């Protein structure tokens, strides 16, 4: 029976809805101390000195640590696989606490106390003397000649600049009869808004520092903590229980390194470092704001002769994932429409803003907005059909990217586009809606995307899995890959059951990772786990199955090659007659007086392939011009993510991604005080995350291809659903009103400004 492709209930569903599932705060030991960080009240400058006298007087204070006390070690925080080649290592540009203040609310000191109120009191009573510089809040200011260096290692504040050129742009634009289309596009700083804020607790045991943390990447966090403290990898142990979301924010070392250090200061007593929602907004990571300048040269038949892009990515105070994001964005610019000459120039720039890092789809929602808005701008300027423009120029089956060699092994994009057109009657409505007048108008819009599956060959892709047989024929499965709410444990259980020949109830997934015992995996990011870690599960399951069959062959005195496992029974290959149950094999293998053997398997997978997933978003909406409001009437995402492992969880993943895309397109953006650089809306009242009542009915559909490189024909799905929504909305507003708005979110005040300028109000 096929388990892959069914809508199996999540393996963690009951524990999560009944409250049995344990998250980091549920596991805090009694009498734990509480740490609070003192954040700077300037955005740019130096801490000159502290007056701790009043803080020490607060009852319950155990320790106060300042930026002058921490190890003099700069370390990287990004959740990338470590590179043993120094040229490709992440940028090490921060200490546990920093005297050089680089953003408002930078971490400059910490208090450890017997309780939260005492810790907060003491933090408030620390007096700080600063040397203050003018905050540098824009990339333009940061790149100005003579601007103050935010990091001495990058005197001009440019973290990285990169270029590429495919063909000759200058030669290609000389062709006769080309139409030039130019556009500038801008995306905002947004926050992940996972339910569980950044938090951890740390203690010492058996000479090791143990950090229990809400992270997507336990094995990487272990490496970062060891680097930050100057200790061996083996001196640190990270435990990751269930987590309440991450969306890339927890693909970074956040509270863990400082907390690992704090416990060493208090004799190894447990220390809790739990960020408030405000700190999670201001002091963890954000999505990079990016600016794009795009020029396209289009032939009369709609084919692209040449395109160029200039991209600027606002890194904020610390490098974190740094240039990887905008590099991914400009790669996406090339891959989506890989025709004609293409030229790119990309900058990642330090500013005194909140630090940007990884966030769902890693630079692609930014370029996705700019590029798909631009394609509709081309359609508007040339009068060409937006669907035809896309299908004509987009990536086709067999494409090999010239710079990364990533190959298009399967594509259902054309069918996604057609299915969406049929669903919405897009072409017909687009024509109809172009001629409206009056205060309330309708519009349709769409956008497409492509997305890689994992990070090979830009980074290492590696994963491991372990299975251990129980005497009743069930097994424990341990994977380094992490469950972060996306349903990883469920699909891994389905894969194991399918490959071994067991029913899913026989697979006990050990959800918790403990770096002392869990096999290695880099963690949940890049929509990689079903593809990369899925292959490790498959290999381990195959090896485990062979071992079971060998023992069954011994028991039955038959050649294991003639045997198979079907639904928990040993059968002859191609026959259904039950010869033995797997439980019979399991108990005999454990207690056999002549031949006991403890069946287990562990395999690792070094992945050297990658593939593209695709999709579209179509939407129909209504714009109330005088009220500056958009109402979504219909919206659908259609995805080619290869074979769908679990339809129900896949649909849930698409809904979640669309919700995030709607927020990106219409609601969410972080605001900063233009003088001080202080984040203004660092809470869920002023940061306009959509509520349930704001969310329209979301539709999801799949065009299933069978990717030859995926373990079960599958491709990435975790991040992609968030990509095409914002540009589809923008393009629908263009259709409705004729107003092209090149910055998101399309919140009421932006609509007010745009409609005022267009003299619609």
């Amino acid at each position, binding site marked *: 029976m096929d388990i892959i492709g069914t809508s199996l209930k999540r393996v963690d569903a009951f524990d999560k809805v009944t409250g049995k599932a344990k998250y980091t705060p549920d596991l805090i030991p009694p009498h734990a101390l509480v740490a609070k960080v003192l954040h700077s009240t300037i955005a740019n400058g130096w801490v000159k000195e502290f007056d701790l006298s009043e803080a020490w007087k607060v009852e319950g204070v155990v320790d106060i640590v300042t930026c002058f006390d921490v190890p003099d070690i700069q370390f990287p925080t990004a959740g990338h696989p470590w590179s043993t080649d120094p040229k490709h290592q992440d940028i090490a540009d921060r200490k546990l606490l920093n005297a050089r203040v680089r953003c408002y609310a930078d971490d400059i000191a910490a208090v450890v106390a017997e309780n939260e109120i005492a810790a907060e009191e003491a933090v408030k009573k620390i007096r700080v003397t600063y040397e203050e510089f003018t905050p540098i809040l824009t990339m333009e200011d940061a790149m100005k000649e003579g601007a103050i260096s935010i990091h001495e290692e990058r005197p001009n504040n440019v973290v990285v600049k990169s270029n590429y050129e495919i063909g000759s742009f200058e030669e290609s634009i000389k062709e006769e009869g080309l139409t030039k289309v130019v556009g500038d596009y801008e995306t905002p700083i947004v926050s992940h808004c996972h339910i569980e804020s950044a938090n951890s607790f740390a203690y010492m045991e058996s000479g090791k520092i143990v950090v229990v943390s809400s992270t997507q990447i336990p094995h990487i966090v272990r490496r970062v903590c060891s680097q930050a403290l100057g200790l061996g990898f083996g001196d640190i142990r990270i435990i990751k229980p269930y987590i309440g979301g991450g969306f890339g924010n927890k693909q970074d070392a956040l509270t863990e390194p400082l907390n690992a250090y704090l416990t060493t200061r208090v004799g190894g007593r447990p220390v809790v470092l739990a960020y408030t929602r405000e700190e999670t907004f201001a002091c963890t990571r954000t999505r990079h704001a990016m600016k794009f300048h795009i020029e396209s040269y289009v032939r009369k038949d709609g084919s692209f002769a040449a395109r160029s892009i200039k991209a600027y990515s606002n890194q904020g105070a610390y490098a974190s994932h740094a240039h990887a994001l905008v590099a991914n964005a400009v790669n996406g610019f090339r891959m989506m429409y890989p025709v004609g000459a293409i030229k790119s120039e990309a900058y990642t720039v330090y500013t005194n803003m909140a630090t940007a890092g990884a966030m769902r789809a890693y630079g692609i929602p930014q370029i996705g907005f700019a590029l798909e808005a631009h394609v509709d701008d081309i359609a508007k300027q040339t009068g060409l059909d937006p669907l035809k423009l896309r299908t004509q120029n987009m990536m086709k089956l067999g494409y090999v990217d010239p710079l990364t060699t990533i190959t298009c092994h399967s594509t259902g994009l054309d069918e996604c586009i057609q299915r969406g057109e049929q669903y919405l009657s897009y072409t017909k409505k687009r024509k109809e809606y172009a001629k409206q007048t009056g205060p309330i108008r309708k519009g349709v819009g769409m956008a497409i995307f492509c997305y890689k599956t994992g990070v090979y060959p830009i980074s290492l892709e590696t994963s491991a899995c372990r299975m251990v047989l129980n005497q009743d024929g069930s097994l424990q499965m341990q994977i380094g890959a992490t469950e972060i709410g996306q349903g990883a444990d469920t699909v891994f259980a389905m894969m194991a059951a399918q490959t071994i020949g067991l029913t899913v109830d026989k697979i006990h997934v050990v959800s918790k990772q403990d770096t002392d015992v869990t096999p290695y995996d880099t963690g949940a990011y890049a929509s990689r786990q079903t593809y990369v870690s899925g292959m490790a599960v498959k290999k381990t399951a195959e090896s485990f199955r062979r071992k079971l069959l060998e023992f069954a062959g011994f028991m039955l005195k038959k050649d294991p090659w003639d045997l198979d496992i079907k639904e928990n029974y040993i059968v002859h290959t191609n026959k259904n007659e039950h010869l033995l149950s797997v439980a019979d094999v399991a108990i005999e293998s454990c207690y056999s007086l002549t031949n006991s053997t403890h069946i287990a398997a562990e395999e690792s997978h070094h992945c050297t392939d990658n593939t593209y997933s695709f999709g579209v978003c179509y939407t129909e909406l209504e714009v109330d011009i005088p*009220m*500056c409001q958009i109402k979504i009437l219909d919206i659908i995402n259609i995805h080619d993510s290869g074979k769908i492992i679990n339809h129900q969880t896949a649909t849930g993943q698409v809904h979640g991604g669309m919700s995030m895309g709607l927020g990106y397109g219409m609601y969410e953006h972080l605001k900063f005080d233009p003088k001080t650089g202080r984040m203004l809306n660092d809470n869920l009242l002023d940061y306009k995350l959509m509520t349930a*009542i704001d969310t329209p009915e979301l539709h999801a559909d799949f065009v299933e291809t069978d990717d030859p490189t995926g373990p079960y024909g599958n491709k990435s799905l975790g991040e992609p659903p968030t990509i095409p929504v914002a540009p589809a909305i923008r393009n629908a507003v263009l259709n409705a009103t004729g107003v092209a708005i090149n910055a998101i979110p399309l919140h*009421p005040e932006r609509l007010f400004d745009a409609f005022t300028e267009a003299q619609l109000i």
Partner: protein
Amino acid sequence: MYNFGTIYETTSVEDALRLKKEHPQAHFLAGGSDILIKVREGKLAGCDVINIYNLDELRGICLEEDGSILIRPLTSFTDVAMHPIIKQYIPVLGEAVNQIGGPQVRNIGTIGGNICNGVTSADSATTLKAYDAMLEISSIDGTRILPYGQFNLGPGKVDLREGELLCGIRISKESYEKTYGHYIKYAMRRAMDIATLGCSVNVTLSEDKKTVKRLRIAFGVAAPVPIRSTTAEASANGHAVNEALLEQVSVGALADVNPRTSWRASKEFRMQLVKEMAKRATKAAIEKAGGTING
């Protein structure tokens, strides 16, 4: 963990007023949906509170002998919205408070707390202003009656003197009889939000529904405190029910409001909303009263 000083429990209104006299620095604690936030933010960290939440004598809505509706201050938003007297006589008030926060906040938050907090964005304030509510304010020394129109002194400042507690909100029969209201809350999302602008309009039409006998219009977030637009009202009273009326109300409203630019929204944007919402709320109120604009 919340940082409180002393929490005084009360058993009666008299007990509460006596405690307030003895401990003038202490804050009355009703539902707590404003105070707890201020404690957490540090603005009221370590404050003393007098807990009145359990005083049921301050809870409930009734129709008095003279026909006035008495709303006691501890009535939760949910109870205001669900109450048959409100549904029958002033449904707009229920509709307004039903747009506050989310279900949990509406269950704990009280209408008295909403207006005593004194912010311009309070969703109950515009409608209570537009219905000329009267406030009954008590101290250990006695009770005084104050028109709600005179209650707000400035942003977050209300006319509650030392030792005083709001004990009743009254709307007279003359104020609600044959009167139909509509409230529009404009916010950046449809729940869990504070108003960018609030507009509450109520109208009384002539027998034939062709003329406005009385129109009252109030705005939130259009000035430092919730306000009435007297210019709009004066130009509407006696006016024929037609498109020109909506224009008059809109122009009148723009003359009276004074919104400010903040990082939440610009003055210009709020003015656009005043202009449009004055028309839309007036039109909706007229339709509820049985009138038609293009009839």
